[in-house]
């Protein structure tokens, strides 16, 4: 460069045309750094943008296709017909039947039995039909068969989805709930697999397009509501699991010495809490308060609890939070005002009444976390996706959500729940060839009447839990009388038929 400058003088004359340019040469020879700096900046921005695009592509394909504003679903459906939905045992729960003219009809061989959990796919989508929509309308059959279909003008079969649902358990649950309104959730404790999910009243998805208008126009109808995941109920005495947990957390040293004289009612200022039907339980300790579900005793415990700690515990137990669940669901709620005088809300909350609301699936998750030594497994219903020619496209595995409570807390609550079966409100479950544990509840939902929803949530076997069952029977009566027999029916089928069948194989 310097040489050029030095030679600049004589050269100017030599190349007269570019005289002006030659003069400027020295000026800008060294802003290379600045130019490259800007290049680097842009390079970084572009790479950042491409990473963003890649991340979006990797994460969002399903959601994008499943959005009802996305017209490409129709395009996929014009080329593929919907795949089948199977139960865990290979029974067909939903399939698309083609007639000679290639007209499609979605058929649900079990009718009402799986109405909410398998759902429907016309008039919107629900249940597994909604969850697995993306897989059902995409196809992964071999290229050769695809081309064969193309040439012959046939549609491709969509991929098939295997669920975790068990037909026998589902049938047992449905029969047990009988004509009552309510819901049942059965999950596998160690994996979170949903084995059965029933919600009554139900409907026949085969006829969904015929009954749709009526169901939509009838504003009071809750037939389409999946009560197991979307129904919000007062938890009643089942909530005492959480009050007991909080009482234990705050009184680790002294809870064994707890004692309370129950006269059927607990009074604090002007507020009164009655035991169910004003029954008087006599002298109770921590365990028998729980086993006998003594409201007065729990109101007493509740009035001693630290509100902000209790709020925190409930939030950690997913009250007021989004559940780790892909099925559409409602959020459970609780109400613990900082200032509350007389302490009415506090006492109401500790016995599961007041403004507390919970979904059956949420109660099931809490119960199965207790049964699983404190660790919550995320409930799931899709097991695997398999193409029509048998290739596994995707496999879903159990996912740990995290620890909800410590091992010794879980151990204590298991002890309490075992006592409910041994000497409390669920003695019907005693001596069945399996040892169950659980908690009953009778949730009052109207101030003025004695009507109550019957609850039971529990698991079995008590020493090494396999399944977790949560039952709510609406407006039936006490949990002990109406929900425990339902749960018993389900445990019976699981342990006497299914588990026994598996063992003999």
């Amino acid at each position: 460069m310097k040489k050029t400058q030095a030679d600049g003088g004589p050269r100017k004359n030599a190349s007269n045309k570019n005289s002006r340019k030659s003069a400027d040469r020295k000026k800008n020879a060294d802003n290379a750094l600045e130019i490259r700096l800007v290049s680097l900046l842009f390079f970084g921005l572009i790479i950042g943008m491409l990473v963003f695009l890649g991340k979006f592509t990797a994460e969002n394909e399903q959601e994008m296709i499943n959005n009802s504003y996305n017209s490409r679903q129709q395009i996929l459906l014009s080329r593929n017909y919907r795949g089948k939905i199977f139960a865990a045992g290979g029974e067909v729960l939903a399939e698309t039947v083609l007639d000679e003219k290639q007209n499609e009809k979605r058929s649900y061989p079990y009718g009402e039995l799986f109405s909410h959990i398998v759902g429907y796919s016309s008039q919107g989508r629900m249940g597994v039909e909604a969850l697995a929509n993306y897989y059902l309308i995409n196809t992964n059959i071999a290229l050769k068969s695809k081309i064969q279909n193309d040439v012959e003008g046939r549609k491709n079969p969509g991929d098939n989805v295997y669920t975790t649902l068990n037909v026998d358990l589902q049938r047992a649950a449905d029969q047990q709930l009988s004509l009552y309104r309510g819901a049942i959730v059965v999950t596998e404790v160690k994996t979170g697999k949903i084995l059965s999910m029933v919600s009554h009243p139900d409907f026949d998805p085969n006829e969904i397009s015929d009954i749709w208008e009526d169901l939509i126009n009838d504003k009071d109808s809750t037939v389409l509501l999946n009560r197991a995941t979307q129904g919000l109920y007062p938890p009643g005495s089942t909530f005492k699991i959480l009050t007991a947990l909080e009482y234990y957390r705050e009184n680790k040293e002294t809870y064994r010495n707890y004692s309370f004289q129950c006269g059927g009612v607990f009074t604090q200022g002007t507020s009164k809490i009655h035991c169910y039907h004003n029954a008087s339980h006599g002298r109770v300790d921590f365990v028998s308060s729980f086993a006998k579900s003594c409201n007065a005793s729990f109101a007493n415990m509740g009035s001693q609890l630290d509100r902000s700690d209790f709020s925190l515990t409930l939030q950690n137990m997913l009250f007021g939070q989004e559940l780790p669940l892909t099925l559409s669901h409602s959020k459970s709620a609780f109400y613990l005002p900082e200032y509350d005088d007389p302490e009415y809300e506090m006492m109401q909350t500790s016995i599961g009444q007041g403004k507390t609301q919970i979904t059956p699936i949420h109660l099931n998750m809490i119960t199965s976390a207790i049964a699983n030594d404190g660790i919550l497994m995320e409930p799931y219903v899709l097991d695997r996706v398999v193409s029509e020619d048998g290739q596994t496209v995707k496999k879903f595995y159990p996912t740990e959500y995290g620890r909800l409570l410590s091992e010794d807390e879980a151990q204590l609550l298991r002890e309490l729940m075992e006592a409910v079966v041994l000497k409390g409100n669920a003695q019907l479950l005693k001596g069945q060839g399996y040892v169950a544990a659980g908690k009953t509840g009778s949730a009052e939902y109207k101030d003025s009447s004695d009507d109550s929803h019957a609850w039971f949530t529990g698991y079995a076997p008590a020493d090494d839990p396999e399944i977790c069952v949560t039952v709510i029977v609406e407006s039936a009566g006490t949990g002990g009388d109406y929900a425990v027999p339902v749960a018993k029916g389900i445990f019976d089928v699981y342990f006497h038929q299914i588990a026994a069948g598996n063992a003999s194989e």
Partner: protein
Amino acid sequence: MQYALSYFTEISKYIIIGMVAAYTLLGFGMLFTGRGKAFKIMGICQECLIFAVQAVQFMHLAIVSANQDYLFLYLFAQVMLLAILGLVHFIYEKENLILLNNMCMLLGFGFCMISRLDLSKAFRQLAIVGISFVISIFIPEILKKIHFWRDLTWFYAVIGVSALSVVLLLGEVSGGSKISFTIAGSITFQPSEFVKILFLFFLAGALWEEHHFWNVALTAVVAGIHVIILTISVDLGSALIFFVTYVLIVFVATRNYLYLFLGAAGGCGAAVLAYRFFHHVRVRVLAWQDPWSYIDHEGYQITQSLFAIGSGNWFGMGLLNGNPKAIPRVDRDFIFSTVCEEMGVITGICLVLICLLSFLAMSEIAVKVQDCFYQLIVYGIAVEYLFQILLTIGGGIKFIPMTGVTLPFVSYGGSSAMTTMFMYFIVQGVCLMMIQQEEGESDERDGKTIEKNAGRRRTEKKRLQ
């Protein structure tokens, strides 16, 4: 036969992905190997790939649509690309091969995507590209022959500002913006595209030798007028491009980091003000932050674009298998989403990398150019080009708020294609001048050494005698 065709249409997208990826890799290879035999071979491979990609794409389109018009378009497009490559090689020999190939690759891709959306628009685009090329081919010659470009500084500013003002006052509203007007009934003309080049000539003219504060301030006023007019016309994308280009050119011309920080701070301030005072700016930001809540109105375009990209995924749905027309103004502002939807995100990423490659090649030329005036122009073109890519693609994937600018060469739009082609050929012209000068210099130097040696020999002889 039918089976073979079916096989072909099923796997064509993978073939295209492979070829485009190979093209991109070759391009980066060329950037890092100096001119030489390997460079030439890679260039030739790239050119083969350009035509191969076109062949596969149009064959797929023709088979799936069963419309033979695609074949006509294909023939025209091939003839045109061949003519562009051939003529430039023939006339200029030492042109920058990376830029030339990239231009042809992007143009070809554009023809294919536009024809997939609307065949008649593709024919129009073809015609406009043809006209643009006929003009552009002279640009390097003109740059070489005419030397008074740097003396017209204020002329550029006056023309630029008045063109933008005319559009603001008389332009027609399209897509909420006042950016174009129609001549002779059918030719729509978007002056802000051409003003981009004028603006660069103005800045380069004003800043190539004088860097003192008042000079910079004066250019700031002119740049500000451009930006304000564009903002009022709701051409936010162009307003941003002008602003960023201004700041970066001042920075590189003066090598003063203070100006860069002032520019950045001013930009943030202006953005806040624009957000406060202009409703349309707020709407864009809102649609970017949470398009899903406004999916019916403000967020419609962006969510449809995301659907397209998400549905296409890595490998795409295949040409004619998607539903790109669900996105409003897809052929101009969202052509990239269509590429991702039907050809796959991998192809989309390669296209962005090809654009990035052009940018890097341009800024390397800028580093080497000795003449400050042309250096600023080349560098400004590089910045305008890449920043526009950042805006259009970033906007389409919800990386940044949408601004509604085109993807140069790929999008439908005559003004955009013509302006970008002018830009590429200006860079080519500057590059050719530079090479010529270098050669001249080395010839001179060689000549001088010979002379000197001869002289030395003479003196030695004399001494000996």
